[in-house]
């Protein structure tokens, strides 16, 4: 059934037990995102080790889709470089049908078990595509992350 496709166990798990929730003591970059239509709110704080994200924290309120997407995102980007994060964001947007610029004719699909799976757990969110009004819920954390990263100039991120 479609609802089970949307509300997969991994999503509900991240919703109930959000990872990296809270605030960083001394974040190097941060951004706030809101969805004015539904009132979902999110604050993302990031610290870097060189070019790589060393720490990330998320605080916010919202539906299971927006909160689980944020939680899974924090796990996925920890330790990743800017370029790697850009690639993740691109794959995420592609999964949400927000980015059709990628030639995926040779794409092995979105099976999280497949070798080289980029998004891992996050691919559980693909069910959201069937619910166009909820895509903005899933995207909120990612858009806010991009804002936080664009906030952090290269100078301030090097240690």
């Amino acid at each position: 059934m479609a609802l089970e496709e949307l509300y997969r166990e991994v999503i509900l798990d991240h919703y109930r037990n959000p990872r990296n929730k809270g605030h960083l003591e001394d974040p190097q970059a941060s951004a706030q995102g809101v969805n004015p239509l539904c009132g979902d709110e999110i604050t993302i704080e990031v610290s870097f080790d060189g070019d790589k994200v060393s720490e990330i924290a998320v605080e916010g309120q919202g539906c299971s889709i927006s909160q689980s997407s944020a939680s899974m995102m924090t796990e996925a980007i920890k330790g990743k470089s800017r370029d790697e994060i850009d690639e993740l964001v691109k794959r995420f947007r592609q999964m949400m049908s927000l980015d059709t610029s990628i030639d995926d004719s040779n794409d092995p699909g979105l099976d999280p078990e497949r070798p080289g799976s980029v998004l891992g757990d996050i691919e559980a969110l693909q069910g959201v595509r069937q619910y166009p009004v909820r895509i903005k819920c899933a995207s909120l954390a990612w858009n806010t992350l991009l804002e936080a990263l664009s906030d952090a100039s290269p100078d301030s991120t090097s240690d």
Partner: protein
Amino acid sequence: MTDLSHLKADFPILESGVHFLDSGASSQKPIPVLEAMDRFARTSYANVHRGAYKLSVASTNAYEAARKRVAEFIGAADEREVIFTRGTTTSLNTVAFGWGMEHLGEGDRILTTQMEHHANLVPWQMVAKRTGATLDHVPITDDGRLDMAILESKLGPDVKVVAVTGMSNVLGTMPDVSRIAQLAHQHGARVVVDAAQLVPHSGVDVQQLGADFVAFSSHKMLGPTGIGVLWGRMDALEETEPFEGGGEMIADVTLHDATWAEIPHRFEAGTPPIIEAVGLHAAIDYLDSIGMDLVFEHDQELTAIALERLSDVPGLAIQGPTDLKDRGGVVSMTMEGIHAHDLATILDEQNVAVRAGHHCAKPLMRCLGVTATARASFYVYNEEADINALIHGLRRAGEIFGTI
């Protein structure tokens, strides 16, 4: 139990089997309304108030007949007190800017409430900033009603206007507007009522209500979108400046100046919603043929059933009054461990349409300590089966999220 089940056949959109519980946002349209607009557009349509030809005369007559019908429906003393606008929001902005900019200044206070829709709050914030007046709010009680004692204590000679909802679009609460108007008038304040929910669901007699301005929309009362009403008592309208300038609203125009047309036309700049006025006329005829007493009673009966049945759903909390006293057919709910948007998505899979979110009342949401609620609202075409489907869907949500 009132039986309005025969009406359902008048609403073609319900043939899909949808359990439509979002009439508080906008109501569905019955065939007589659709047919009246269609017939008018096919046979009598032209612009109003400006043609010497027969069609324009027929169109003008239909438009003015709608005004007369609205006046009669709300008990206006004079049909010129009925102004057609784009909707409740435009009606309230007309008062805030047209009246407020003329009569508010530093040292004056605008008194509104914590349960207002943004449409009866944001315009007053804007006008307060421009005039230097301050904005003050009456809080709600723990059971979701307007705190009348605090309202009374906040009234004073510096309060120039009281802006209050006739029925909360989130809680269903119906403040005692007649009493508020009485109290406010003792202090010489004008009273503005957001009646977007009140008029469709209980009807209004503006004489009995006692306010100075009353705003409502057609689309929430079985009529089309694009038209609403601002009723103003004549003396209040006389001290209101036009909020929009343009065609239709002038008496004379030179290159540097203009004088206004008579009331109500000075408040209706540009080509008005003519076909929509005909639709609103038909919607009022339809509601009157049921009887507003029965419309309200039907809402009440469904609300009683919903309140009772919802109290059995594990983890569910009603936001607002949990009894029938002074409330309309709007029920807001939250469910432990499940966000309102997830509820709405799951309910939609069961073909139950409810609203989820902040309902354009963010200050009220903060005051309730929630970011969003799921809201079911009832109207003449709803029946007990719709509530059964709602309850079934809520339980299903509990199962999916593992909270039941």
